[in-house]
């Protein structure tokens, strides 16, 4: 086994190894989309973000327009702060609303944007004013039970 | 003023853990001579060789080699000392993953900055000295025992060492190969102006070849001198060793209880 043959095969090996890594990153993963695009950041305050995670998609009309860049906590207002990183190609009016939605029935949570009507667009670092928190299942259930109990009480009381 | 002895062993004691191997050895290796250290297997001669090679440190006593005390050497000094020595291991110990040429060129490539053509010339020179220049492209697996031993010898002298150590160089060789190695040991020693130490138990091949002999038994030197003097010395162990007698100071029977008693014969003592 002489040197140049070994060098050749090692070169081939490293080349196809790196090729496999590239294949995984581009065709299998989501490297091709988003990471190199220009983005601008806006933040949104929510009463409850539910199960929203960093890197969750930000969608408008069902199309992914950005990602959740960071999730923090406002200790003054006791609210959740989500920083959204939105693709610079898409501009949204200042009165756009952000809602935390669930994909499917029990799937991942994401942020859905509904465009408003304001003439001025959101700029880097500004804040979305209109937000709707995630639906927390326990609150829903207790609400439901409470309203059912109230109905029943009224009916009895009314007799 | 060069020291008359290239290696001096003073009152050397050595033990592997609790197992004592050498007891109070005193010997000198005179410069420029070929010296044999002979004895039975297990008498400690290989251990002695390793101490001279600074691969082992004395438990007590001193080993002075090429002017340095082996016990005082740090790693760099140790490696510097070893570059002035060459060692031929039993069975050759060639590097099996490289050719004969690369084996001999190994030390030159590792320790010198010589350009490749200089290394090539020197390597072929060394191989020519042992008669194997034509085998330069072979792999160690393709060599016979005798050829492998000769390549290892060429490798040991690659950097023109001042001290050459041989660990049982004649083991397992046919008479022709043995004769070749013996001739090479003497020739290379004289042409390089080096000193050689041979550890062996091959009396017939070694005694005619060397200038001085040390006989060892049970970790002690029992006789020393020129081959002629030693043959005449009358020391019983030497007589038995040289003549190959089956019984003498080294008994034939391993110590055992009475023979008749062991066999269960009636009337046993």
């Amino acid at each position, binding site marked *: 086994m002489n040197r140049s043959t*070994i060098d050749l095969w090692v070169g081939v*090996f490293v080349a196809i*190894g790196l090729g*496999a890594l590239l294949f*995984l990153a581009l065709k299998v993963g*989501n490297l091709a989309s988003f990471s190199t695009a220009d983005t601008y950041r806006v933040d949104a305050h929510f009463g409850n973000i539910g199960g929203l995670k960093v890197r969750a998609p930000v969608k408008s009309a069902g199309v992914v327009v950005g990602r959740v860049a960071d999730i923090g906590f406002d200790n003054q207002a006791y609210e959740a702060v989500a920083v959204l990183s939105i693709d610079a190609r898409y501009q949204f009016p200042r009165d756009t609303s952000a809602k935390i939605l669930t994909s499917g029935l029990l799937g991942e949570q994401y942020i859905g944007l509904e465009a408003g009507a304001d003439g001025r667009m959101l700029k880097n670092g500004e804040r979305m004013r209109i937000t709707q928190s995630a639906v927390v299942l326990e609150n829903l259930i207790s609400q439901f039970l409470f309203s059912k109990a109230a109905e029943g009480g009224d009916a009895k009381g009314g007799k | 003023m060069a020291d008359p002895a290239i290696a001096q062993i003073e009152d050397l004691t050595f033990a592997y853990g609790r197992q004592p191997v050498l007891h109070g050895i005193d010997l000198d290796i005179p410069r420029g001579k070929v010296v044999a250290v002979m004895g039975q297997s297990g008498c400690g001669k290989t251990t002695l060789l390793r101490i001279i090679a600074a691969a082992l440190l004395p438990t007590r006593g001193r080993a002075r080699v090429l002017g340095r005390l082996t016990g005082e050497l740090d790693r760099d000094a140790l490696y510097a000392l070893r570059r002035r020595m060459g060692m031929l291991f039993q069975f050759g110990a060639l590097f099996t993953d490289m050719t004969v040429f690369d084996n001999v060129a*190994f030390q030159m490539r590792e320790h010198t900055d010589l350009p490749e053509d200089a290394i090539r010339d020197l390597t072929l020179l060394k191989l020519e000295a042992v008669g194997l220049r034509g085998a330069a492209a072979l792999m160690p697996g393709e060599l016979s025992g005798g050829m492998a031993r000769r390549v290892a010898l060429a490798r040991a002298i690659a950097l023109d060492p001042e001290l050459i150590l041989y660990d049982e160089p004649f083991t397992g060789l046919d008479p022709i190969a043995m004769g070749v190695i013996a001739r090479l040991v003497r020739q290379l020693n004289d042409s390089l102006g080096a000193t050689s130490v041979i550890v062996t138990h091959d009396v017939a091949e070694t005694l005619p070849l060397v200038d001085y002999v040390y006989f060892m038994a049970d970790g002690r030197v029992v006789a020393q001198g020129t081959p002629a003097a030693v043959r005449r010395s009358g020391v019983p162990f030497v007589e038995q060793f040289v003549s190959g007698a089956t019984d003498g100071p080294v008994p034939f029977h391993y110590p055992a209880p009475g023979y008749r008693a062991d066999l269960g014969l009636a009337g046993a003592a």
Partner: protein
Amino acid sequence: MRAALIRLGAAVTSGVWRLGYASRFFVYLLAHSGTALRRFRLTVREIYFAGVLSLIIILVSGLFVGMVLGLQGYDTLQRYGSSEALGVLVALSLVRELGPVVAGLLFASRAGSAITAEIGLMKATEQLSTMEMMAVDPVARVVAPRFWGGVLSMPLLAALFSAMGIFGGYLVGVVLIGVDEGAFWSQMQAAVDVRNDILNGVIKSVVFGVAVTLIAVFEGYDAPPTAEGVSGATTRTVVTSSLAILALDFVLTALMFTGGN
């Protein structure tokens, strides 16, 4: 009873002692890796023997594992009407877990045992002692290149395993069974994240590479210089490496793939 306890205690003590010895050996190895990296030719040779010669077994195994994932995955998913998620299943299983782990296990048995046997034999035939006598540090000249050769080969082999596996899943799922090709790839791309999944898988394979190769060179270097010694060391390499991979996999998975935001 008492004898058994004594033996157990002795085994644990010697195990801990050996671990300490192995750690010191590792530090020494790293400190003397200069030669392996400066004379990169030596390391390239070892990448050939550890990496290139493992290619066949890695590629074939990857293909078969991917195909089995395709079959089993489809069988389970189509019961819940989610057969379009097959791509996601195959890709995530391979990239996060099976790629690094199975490639690591195969590497340990093929390349790891070969490295141990080679170093052990060099020790038994006194080649390492010869080098010492020639004032060449055998750890720097023989052991370090093999270590770095293994560490550099492992991530590439794991990536190749995963890629072949995904291809195998594609073959079975899309070509053979008929799952929709577009859904296969697009759902996979949506679900597999480069940072969280692929990068973590690569990190795992690097960690496994270090563990397996370190165990292999250590066992070879420490092997008793006899025939039984070398064969025992080779067996120990495969067993210890496999256990190490599985244990490290648990630790790394717990660190990487659980936890919240």
